C-alpha cells in the first residue's frame, strides 16, 4: 500500500517541479519549432516526399524529437537529486527501488507528453487532423517515451556530475534523432544507413506516428507498436536493475 502512495508521491513531486520550472519547458519546445519552421519550412518550399510537402512530412518526426530530447534529458534531474542529498531522502524511505524508478519514469513521461501535446496543438497549421487516431498517437508516444525516459534515468543513475551526464546523452540523443527517419523517408536508403535506422527504436516511433497522422508508414503500425513495447519493457527492466545497483 505504501508502495502505491510512494509511487504517487514521487510522480507528484516531479510534476510540481515541472510546473514550476518554466524554463525546462520553453527550451524543449523552442528547439523543435526551430527545426520545423526553419529547416522544414526552408526545404518544404521546394521538396516533397511521395506527394507530401516536406514540412508536413517531418512534422511527426519533430514531435518525436521534442519528446526524445526532453525524455532523455530528464535523467539529469536525478544527478541533481544526488548532488543535493534529496536522493538519499528518497532512497532511505521504505520503498522498493522498482517503485522509485517507476515513479520517476511516470514523472518524465508526463513532462514529455505535455510537451508533445503543445507541439501537436499546431497540427491544424499543416492541415493535419487526428480524429480518433489521437488516442492511438498518445498510446504510441506513451510507450516510446517510457523507453526513452528510462534511458535517461539509467545514464543518470550512473553519473555523478551533470556535465558528465550532458556529454554522454549528446552521444545518445543525436544518433537517435538523425538516424530515425524523422527527416527522411526510409524506402530508398543506402544499405548501411538502412541497417542503422532499422536498429534505432525511435524509427518505429516516428513511423507509427507518421502512419497515424499522415496515413503513410514504412512498416505496419502494429509492427511498430510491438517493437516499441519490447524496447520499453527491456529498458524498464534494465532501469530497475540500474536503480537497485545505484550507489550514493
Amino acid at each position: 500500500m505504501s508502495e502505491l502512495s510512494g509511487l504517487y508521491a514521487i510522480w507528484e513531486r516531479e510534476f510540481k517541479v515541472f510546473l514550476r520550472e518554466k524554463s525546462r519547458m520553453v527550451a524543449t519546445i523552442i528547439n523543435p519549432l526551430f527545426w520545423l519552421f526553419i529547416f522544414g519550412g526552408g526545404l518544404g518550399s521546394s521538396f516533397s516526399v511521395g506527394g507530401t510537402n516536406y514540412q508536413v512530412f517531418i512534422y511527426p518526426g519533430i514531435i518525436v524529437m521534442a519528446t526524445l530530447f526532453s525524455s532523455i534529458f530528464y535523467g539529469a534531474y536525478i544527478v541533481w537529486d544526488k548532488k543535493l542529498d534529496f536522493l538519499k531522502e528518497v532512497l532511505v524511505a521504505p520503498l522498493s527501488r522498482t517503485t522509485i524508478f517507476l515513479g520517476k519514469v511516470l514523472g518524465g513521461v508526463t513532462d514529455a507528453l505535455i510537451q508533445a501535446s503543445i507541439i501537436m496543438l499546431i497540427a491544424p497549421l499543416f492541415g493535419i487532423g487526428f480524429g480518433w487516431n489521437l488516442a492511438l498517437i498518445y498510446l504510441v508516444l506513451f510507450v516510446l517515451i517510457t523507453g526513452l525516459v528510462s534511458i535517461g534515468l539509467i545514464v543518470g543513475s550512473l553519473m555523478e556530475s551533470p556535465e558528465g551526464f550532458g556529454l554522454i546523452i549528446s552521444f545518445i540523443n543525436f544518433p537517435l534523432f538523425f538516424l530515425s527517419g524523422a527527416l527522411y523517408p526510409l524506402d530508398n536508403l543506402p544499405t548501411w544507413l538502412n541497417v542503422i535506422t532499422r536498429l534505432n527504436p525511435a524509427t518505429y516511433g516516428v513511423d507509427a506516428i507518421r502512419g497515424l497522422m499522415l496515413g503513410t508508414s514504412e512498416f505496419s503500425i502494429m509492427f511498430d507498436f510491438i517493437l516499441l513495447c519490447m524496447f520499453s519493457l527491456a529498458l524498464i527492466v534494465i532501469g530497475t536493475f540500474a536503480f537497485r545497483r545505484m550507489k550514493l
Partner: protein
Amino acid sequence: MLIEVKGLTKRFGDFTAVDSINLSIKEGEVFGLLGPNGAGKTTTLHMLATLLKPTDGIALVNGYDVVKQSDDVRKSIGIVFQEPSSDDLLTGYENLRLHALMYGVPQANLRKKIHEVLELVDLVDRKDDQVKKYSGGMRRRLEIARGLLHHPKILFLDEPTLGLDPQTREHMWKYIEDLVKKKKITIIITTHYMEEADRLCDRIAIIDHGKTVVIDSPEKLKSELGGDIVSMKIRKPNLKAIGKLRYVKKIDRTNGVVLLTVENANKNLPEILKTIGSVESVELHSPTLNDVFLHFTGRQLREEQAEGGFWERATTYKVRR
C-alpha cells in the same frame, strides 16, 4: 539494546573509513558520535540507515539487521542528513507531504500529522513558502520535522548544526532538547562540535580515524581526567621538574603551549608557575571534551568548519535546474 553494533567496518577501496566499531545504544538515550572531519561518523550513520552496505561486521537497529532486514530498519528510523536534502522548489508543506506519502502515512490524518511536526519546529506560518526562501536554520528544522513525521523510534541527526551561526545553533539545541522532553525517542547525533556533544548527549563515543577511542557520559569522561587543565604559553618549559610534582596528572605539548592536568589546580598553580619557568600567559579551566579528545588522541579536536558545510551546499545548488 535498541542499537547493537559489532565490528562494523566500511572500506572504500584500500581506505578504511570505519574500522571495526562496537556500540550499544539504549532506548531513550541521546547518543553522540564525536570526532573530527573524516573520522567516519557519516559513513557509520549511513550504514545504520541502510544507505551503505557494511564491508564487515553486524548492526542491529531496533532489533533488525541493517543488511538482511533493511525495510524494517528503514521503517524504524528517521534521519536528517548532513547536507540539505529537501527539494527547494517545493514548499515546506509539500516536502513533508512527499515524505508522509512515501512512508505510507494514511491520507486521512496526513494534514494533522504534518501540522503537528510543523508546530514542533515552529514553521507553521512559513509552511507554504518554497524551501529556497528558507534560511539555513529553517531548512534544518524542516528536515528535523520531516525526520519525525512518521513517528520513528530512532532519529539520526548528522551534524545538526553544521554551518549555522552561533545564535541559530543555540536555538537548534533548544529544539532538540525540547524534542527529547516531548517525544520518547532515541536520538543519535554526530558532531564535531564538542559543546554540542557535551550539552545534548547522555553518552558519547569519541571517534577518530574510523575507530571508537572511548565511550562514556561527557561528565565521566571529563572527571576521569582527574583534575583541571592549566594551559601555558611558554618557550622553554622545565618539564622535568614539573614531572616530579605529584599533583600533575598529565603533560601535553602542542605548538608552543604546555597543557597540564592538575589536581586542585587553584591551590597548586603558584608552585607550578614557579617551577616551570617564565610563562608568557596562563589559563586555567575545568576539563572540556576537547581536553578529553586531546588526552586520548594527542591532538586537538579542531573547531574548523567542515568542508562543504550545510549552508554552503544549500546555496551552491540553489540554481540547479
